[in-house]
């Protein structure tokens, strides 16, 4: 029992370590990537002992700065909620990772370890619940600041998140219908099958429309460009206008964490999670006949690497998207959500259902 607990703690530690570092790394990637896109050099100062490391220490400098900055709570604000809001934000973003499987079962001796912090049967529901609870961080931040702009920003953000959650959820129904489970590790495992013997049965193949809707809605859900109206730090007054220092930093961190959550979810649901094409627990089985046996630990390692690489690629793509697409107007945002994504998602569910009923055996 103690060993199980230790294993879970270690797993949680690994996930937290990886995710938080990735979020920190994200700030650097974002700076450098936007710089390259815009023909600039990007942040390249903040040397430590003369080493600039391509400006990688800027993230550290930022954290130091945020910790040392004055923490201002507006006069008349609800101190408890004002304090709570950023923590809620970060917390719900972090706990989401618990249900995401980042590798297949690892067998050490007679012990089988699921590379997943929490094995939940209805993991998808859990993830949605957690993502939805993230709204509380936003609305509380706006409400507790005792600032009309902040509360308007909070309401705007809440409206946006709730609107897109619907499209997000309905898009996933298609996936659930196809794989017949809400357990993420099962979904990933069933993506290891091949269609016609050569095409991996990834979500993107069987549910392409759901993928587009999911990515769009998830971006809106995480308040990334082109849907960053609630934040838009420099242009629009958002819900965290009254936050400074590390509390602001936590909202900022949430932003990056949620990007990683979305990238992980997209990977898990539509790109086979930790699956490597043609890799089964006993080795590679290529459709043209080659077979390469692989040890269990190597197989798991391949899986984790596969998951990580896919996730990073999506992080990169979301970033690229951010620096490509201009921000939506609020009415455009709402009409896209309700008049575009929602009906299409519903249609997707109906079509999927029809296809499943008639060609259920085929898929």
């Amino acid at each position, binding site marked *: 029992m103690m060993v199980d607990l230790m294993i879970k703690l270690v797993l949680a530690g690994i996930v937290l370590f990886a995710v938080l570092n990735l979020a920190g790394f994200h700030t650097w990637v974002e700076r450098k*990537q936007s710089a390259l896109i*815009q*023909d*600039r*050099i990007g942040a390249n100062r903040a040397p430590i002992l003369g080493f600039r490391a391509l400006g990688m220490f800027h993230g550290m400098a930022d954290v130091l700065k945020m910790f040392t900055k004055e923490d201002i709570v507006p006069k008349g604000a609800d101190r408890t909620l004002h304090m709570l809001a950023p923590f809620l934000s970060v917390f719900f973003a972090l706990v989401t990772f618990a249900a995401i499987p980042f590798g297949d079962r690892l067998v050490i001796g007679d012990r089988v370890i699921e590379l997943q912090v929490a094995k939940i049967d209805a993991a998808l529901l859990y993830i949605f619940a957690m993502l939805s609870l993230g709204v509380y961080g936003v609305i509380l931040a706006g409400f507790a600041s005792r600032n009309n702009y902040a509360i308007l920003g909070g309401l705007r953000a809440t409206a946006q998140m709730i609107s897109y959650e619907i499209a997000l959820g309905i898009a996933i129904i298609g996936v659930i219908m196809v794989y017949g489970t809400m357990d993420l590790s099962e979904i990933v495992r069933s993506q290891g099958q091949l269609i016609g013997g050569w095409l991996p049965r990834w979500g993107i193949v069987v549910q392409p429309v759901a993928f587009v809707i999911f990515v769009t809605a998830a971006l809106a859900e995480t308040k990334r460009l082109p849907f960053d109206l609630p934040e838009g730090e420099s242009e629009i007054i958002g819900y965290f206008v009254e936050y400074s220092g590390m509390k602001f930093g936590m909202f900022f961190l949430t932003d990056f964490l949620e990007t990683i959550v979305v990238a992980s979810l997209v990977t898990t649901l539509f790109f086979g999670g930790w699956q490597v094409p043609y890799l089964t627990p006993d080795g590679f089985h290529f459709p043209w006949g080659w077979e390469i046996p692989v040890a269990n630990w190597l197989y798991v390692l391949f899986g984790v690497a596969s998951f990580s690489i896919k996730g990073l690629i999506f992080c990169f793509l979301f970033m690229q*998207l951010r620096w490509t*697409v201009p921000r939506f107007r609020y009415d455009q945002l709402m009409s896209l959500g309700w008049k575009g994504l929602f009906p299409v998602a519903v249609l997707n569910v109906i079509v999927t259902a029809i296809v499943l009923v008639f060609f259920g055996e085929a898929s």
Partner: protein
Amino acid sequence: MAVKVVRRPELTFWEKLYLPQIFCGMKITSRHFFKNLFLHIAHLFGRLQHIPAAATIQYPEELRPLMSRYRSRHRLTRRDDGSPRCVGCMLCETVCPARCITIVPDEHPDPDVEKFPVRFDIDLGMCVYCGYCVEVCPEDAIRMDTGILDLAAYSREAMQLDIHELLDPELRKPVAACDLEFPHQCSVHGGEMKGGWEGTAVTPSS
């Protein structure tokens, strides 16, 4: 009244679909990204140096090329013997719209020169860089061609340049290294003589 009707361009179906347009945009940004990434890496290995990877000018190390008529920090020019060309005619002080120039002239020991500045201060905190002082100078004694643009200081007093710093612009860079006193006592009033320059012995007129 003629009204020109400008129709908003109708979007085609594919444009309305939005997704293809996003991919077009991604193509552009990705092209920039990968081209610049490649160039940066190539530069690391000393290749393709002639193709710039960024439009950035790394400011403190790298200075923007200035136009030849750019008005940067002032300097006072010198004669062949090292003394300032300024004859203390005060036309620049007169013409200065910001009144940032302070000159105290005195009689020069050489009657042919007649006057020289015992004190010549420019308060850069007040200067508007109009360049009138350069235009008006009959002796070409003041120029704004040092190319020094950075005028940071911790106090208003430190923004004031005296005759030494104007004669030798390098004295003021960096600011912290300058230990000259300011303002200078006026020699006419029996104070210590600080407006002199090496090479020429100056005696206060009496």
